[in-house]
């Protein structure tokens, strides 16, 4: 413990204390009956444009993002910037599709994607597939948030092995679990406001102060190895890095909003209009993410990987240590505390929302569908609170006992899995032309093919698709979504031609999808 940075640690602890208080106090914010699931799990759908901005921003742009994107830039160069087109093309989707989903869910009291699919298609098995996919894709994502937290705790100088080294993580986890249990979605929403202000402060300080210290952007980019500065120009008969870059951006954007934690944050908005306004306002975070990606290059320019004081950190956390190392190298101690607290708190906000979202799914679409069909509202809310604890405990155990790389692999697979829910959710928001069983088969084949392709590529995100003489490297999630859609359409046509089985009743009507 002799390397502990006491100034930074003190600032870090004070800020954590602040948000702990805030998390508990949030129970009284826009007060509602927390014994009802829509109050605990969606904060009563009362968040206006501004709170939604903080909440969705704090939810989608996670601590892990702020560590991993610059780390990718630091290690792999230009390709890391796909996060920028990714977070550009996601917003038209938010603008067009999600207000429709918000309206229908508001009208019918749906809390989860599973609720919507159950109501729209009347098929509990399709709803179960959507639900299980959501929960399974979310779990490793929560675990990764704890990785983000681990990296900054390591950066504060608390290192070593054994229970003592894990203690800060366990304390942070207990805080998270307690305020989520007591305040529900109101807790991450209020904490997100503090966290986002700290993150903006950190990002702008980093982008202004560090380039001045390093002698300008020209010098920084000169330090980037030539082959990492731009995407590699594709050779003959391949779309090469260009195809990979574009499909990674588009596929990630299509997947992002389907995650349960995205939907939970979107559904907690007070109107479809608040969501549309946010499609124009949320790019503020994209800009910050882009600037933070550049911080990976700053770390290269500053040569932090060669400095002896950071050798242990890089050894333990790999490239994920690039940003913490750069901050330690460039900022005064007190501001290191602010920056690390921003990242650490940035882990708690999405982790809380993810655990709430997974708990809502379990309660609504597994327990109340298959186990206890007629719970009282109080039982339902209580069940969700317990489920949120179990989900988080699972993530903590995973991080403490399983090597981090497996969390990263699983999160990668999670993107491939969650995108398979797009046909039922996004196309379902417009039409129920697609047959529910066809959707289920498409989902199953997409999930199976995506998993097999990812494993065949040693869990790399892209797959070199062969088409005649051409090789098309692209994001596996994107390719398997096309497969899924094709299967769903063809099977729907076949089933309609055979006039097989009358589809179950649709609870919703066209008017439910708009204001």
């Amino acid at each position: 413990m002799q390397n502990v940075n006491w100034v930074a640690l003190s600032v870090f602890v004070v800020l954590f204390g602040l948000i702990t208080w805030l998390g508990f106090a949030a129970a009284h914010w826009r007060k509602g009956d927390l014994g009802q699931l829509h109050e605990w799990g969606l904060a009563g759908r009362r968040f206006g444009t501004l709170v939604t901005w903080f909440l969705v921003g704090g939810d989608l742009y996670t601590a892990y993002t702020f560590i991993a994107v610059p780390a990718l830039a630091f290690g792999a160069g230009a390709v890391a910037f796909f996060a920028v087109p990714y977070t550009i093309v996601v917003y038209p989707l938010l603008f067009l599709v999600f207000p429709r989903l918000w309206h229908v869910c508001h009208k019918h009291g749906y809390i989860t994607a599973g609720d919507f699919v159950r109501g729209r298609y009347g098929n509990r098995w399709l709803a179960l597939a959507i639900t299980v996919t959501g929960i399974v894709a979310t779990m490793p994502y929560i675990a990764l948030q704890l990785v983000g937290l681990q990296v900054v705790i390591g950066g504060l100088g608390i290192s070593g092995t054994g229970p003592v080294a894990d203690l800060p993580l366990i304390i942070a986890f207990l805080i998270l679990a307690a305020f989520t249990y007591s305040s529900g979605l109101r807790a991450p929403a209020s904490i997100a406001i503090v966290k986002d202000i700290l993150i903006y402060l950190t990002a702008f300080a980093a982008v202004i102060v560090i380039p001045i210290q390093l002698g300008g952007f020209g010098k920084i980019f000169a330090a980037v190895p030539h082959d990492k500065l731009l995407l590699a120009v594709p050779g003959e008969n391949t779309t090469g890095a260009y195809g990979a870059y574009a499909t990674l951006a588009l596929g990630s954007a299509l997947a992002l909003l389907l995650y349960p934690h995205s939907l939970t944050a979107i559904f907690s908005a007070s109107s479809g209009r608040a969501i549309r306004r946010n499609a124009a306002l949320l790019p503020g975070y994209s800009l910050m993410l882009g600037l933070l990606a550049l911080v990976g290059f700053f770390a290269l320019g500053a040569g932090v990987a060669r400095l002896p004081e950071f050798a242990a950190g890089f050894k333990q956390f790999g490239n994920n240590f690039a940003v913490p190392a750069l901050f330690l190298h460039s900022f005064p101690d007190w501001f290191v505390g602010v920056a690390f607290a921003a990242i650490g708190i940035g882990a708690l906000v999405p982790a809380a929302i993810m655990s709430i979202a997974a708990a809502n799914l379990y309660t609504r679409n597994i327990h109340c569908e298959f186990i206890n069909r007629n719970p009282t509202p109080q039982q339902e809310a209580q069940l969700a609170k317990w489920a949120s604890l179990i989900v988080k405990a699972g993530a903590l155990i995973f991080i403490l006992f399983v090597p981090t790389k497996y969390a990263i692999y699983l999160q990668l697979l999670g993107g491939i899995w969650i995108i398979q829910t797009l046909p039922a959710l996004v196309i379902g928001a417009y039409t129920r032309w697609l047959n529910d069983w066809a959707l289920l088969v498409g989902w199953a084949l997409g999930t199976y093919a995506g998993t097999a392709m990812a494993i065949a590529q040693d869990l790399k995100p892209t797959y070199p698709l062969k088409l005649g003489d051409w090789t098309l490297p692209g994001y596996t999630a994107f390719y398997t979504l096309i497969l899924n859609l094709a299967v769903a359409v063809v099977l729907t046509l076949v089933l309609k031609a055979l006039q097989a089985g009358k589809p179950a009743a649709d609870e919703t009507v066209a008017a439910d999808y708009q204001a």
Partner: protein
Amino acid sequence: MNSNAGDKRGERSAWSWWYLLFLIQFVAVLWPPFYNKVEPALLGMPFFYWYQLACVVVAAVMTAIIYVITER
């Protein structure tokens, strides 16, 4: 689109041709040959980077414009 909210029958009333403006954003950032180059650099930042960052701002402004027009 709110003016049509009273008479439903139609999801169609929710569509606006202005939404096609979103396509520009997709093309501008999902076609890397457009921007995968160093020059013209801005303050020492290669084109690849500042172009995409600028696209974030332009896309946000376009979305705001589409919002204002279609919300009327």
